[in-house]
């Protein structure tokens, strides 16, 4: 556990050291603003909640999170530091989890920087703060899941572009299988409803939406946490078997 913390610390410091990460922050905040106010019509709805803010996150994260996760392992592979790291007395899962947690802390901080959104909605009306907090928790879990999927794929390749594209595609599928218009399309094509529902139960989208409604169901949280653990474990296995490729 000590090594996990040391790797986490180093990794997080390297985020703060990298100029690209500030570009990411600006993009993240800017896009959140544009989507919430311009596209979702935050003012026009005249409702004191943050739904128009959170509803975009599954889509926004599709582009932004793989941009963070792609470098987690691909860069270590490319620069050869993976050989340095794994010839030190460091366990595979410690390294995987340490790096993942650093990235997760970073995206969580980025998300917390959207606090003016909360102030705005509190100034304009009386939002249900429980729902707002649930929304944030949901969004943190969602970003964690994207990141875990991303670090899994990052562990498989030294090419950051491939890592980005594969993560993006996988997460897109994981969103779409629970996205109503998409599910509806397959229903119209006479796919059995029970099958579609079973598949939708594995979607990021379904679980995220259920949390943002303000219901912190154990099953949703369990879903996200187990998905994160599985992805990290899978990534550790990939590293164990193909460190040097």
């Amino acid at each position, binding site marked *: 556990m*000590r*090594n996990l913390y*040391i*790797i986490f610390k*180093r990794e997080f*410091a*390297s985020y703060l*050291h*990298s100029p690209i990460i500030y570009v990411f922050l600006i993009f993240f905040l800017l896009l959140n603003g544009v989507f919430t106010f311009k596209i979702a019509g935050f003012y026009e709805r005249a409702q004191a909640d943050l739904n128009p803010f959170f509803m975009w996150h599954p889509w926004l994260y599709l582009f932004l999170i793989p941009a963070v996760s792609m470098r987690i392992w691909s860069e270590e592979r490319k*620069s*050869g*530091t993976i*050989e*340095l790291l*794994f*010839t*030190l*007395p*460091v*366990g595979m899962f410690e390294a995987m989890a340490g790096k993942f947690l650093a990235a997760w802390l970073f995206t969580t901080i980025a998300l917390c920087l959207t606090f003016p959104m909360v102030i705005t909605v509190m100034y304009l009306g009386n939002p249900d703060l429980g729902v707002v907090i649930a929304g944030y928790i949901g969004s943190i879990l969602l970003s964690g899941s994207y990141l875990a999927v991303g670090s899994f794929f990052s562990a498989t390749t030294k090419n950051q572009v491939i890592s980005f594209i594969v993560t993006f595609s996988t997460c897109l599928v994981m969103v779409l299988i629970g996205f109503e218009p998409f599910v509806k399309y397959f229903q119209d094509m006479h796919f059995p409803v029970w099958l579609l529902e079973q598949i939708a139960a594995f979607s990021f989208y379904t679980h995220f939406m259920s949390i943002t409604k303000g219901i912190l169901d154990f099953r949703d949280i369990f879903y996200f946490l187990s998905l994160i653990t599985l992805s990290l474990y899978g990534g550790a296995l990939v590293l164990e078997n193909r*460190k*040097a490729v």
Partner: protein
Amino acid sequence: MHTEVNVQNLGKHYGPIKAVDGISFSVQKGEVLGFLGPNGAGKTTTMKMLTCFLTPSFGTANICGFDILEKSIDVRRIVGYIPESAPSYDDMNVKSFLEFIADIRGYDGSERKKRVTRVVEITNLSSVLSQDIETLSKGYRRRVSLAQALIHDPPVLILDEPTDGLDPNQKHEVRTLIKDIARDKVIILSTHILEEVDAVCSRAIIISSGKIVANESPTELRRRSRYAGSVEIAIRTEEARRVHDILQSIPQVQEVETLSNDAPLSHYLAIPAKGAKIDEDILKLAKERDWKIESFSIEKGRLDEVFRSITGGGLS
């Protein structure tokens, strides 16, 4: 804990490619083992297996009592390693990078500070401590990598081409350093610079196509050379034209090369038959025929020639 490395039938196959094909050797405390071989011979692969970065296809190795397959973390704890390209986290500065390594190696507080200060001193890094590693020259980056490998004062050091890309002064520094610390350690280093074997190694292993083809001291290796024991002689005499044939007539001399012939001074290289000693015969002969010897030297043998002949590159 007995400091030694024991490699047993270690091998790595990638499909049909036999990168390392079952090699065995052992190294004792105090030895500096040079790992030689043409590019692609399996040097780096072997080192990666010994440091638990690559899993062997078969065989194993024991490092200070720890098996590389079963006690991987323990092996990594006691081995210091510089990978071939000397990678380090480029976005960190030298000090925080070394502190990170010390952290991982389990040192904190004043112990960590002491360890970092010590390796910085040994490797002469104090002037660049606060610089980002990516801004450093190749020589300094090598030194950072060396510092990293030494932080826990490891009983076993594995260095993959530690002087690659360094200028002659830096090479000399690194070699001096290796010799300084070698006394109570096992050091395995790979190189394809033959002079390095002479300079630092107490023993050399030559591998070719994944197999060990020689395992002996540099002196013994040299004796394999056809030039070993050959005599280079410069003679001033009136019968310069006949010297070649006279030398050739010595029974033990296999071949005489004329290096230069500006009568009355001429210059020859006499190569003995394998293992024979010809220097005294030649001296005796020179005395008999009243040749005036201007210079005389006995060759110890040429490592590069031995290297080429046993790794299959010696087509000439």
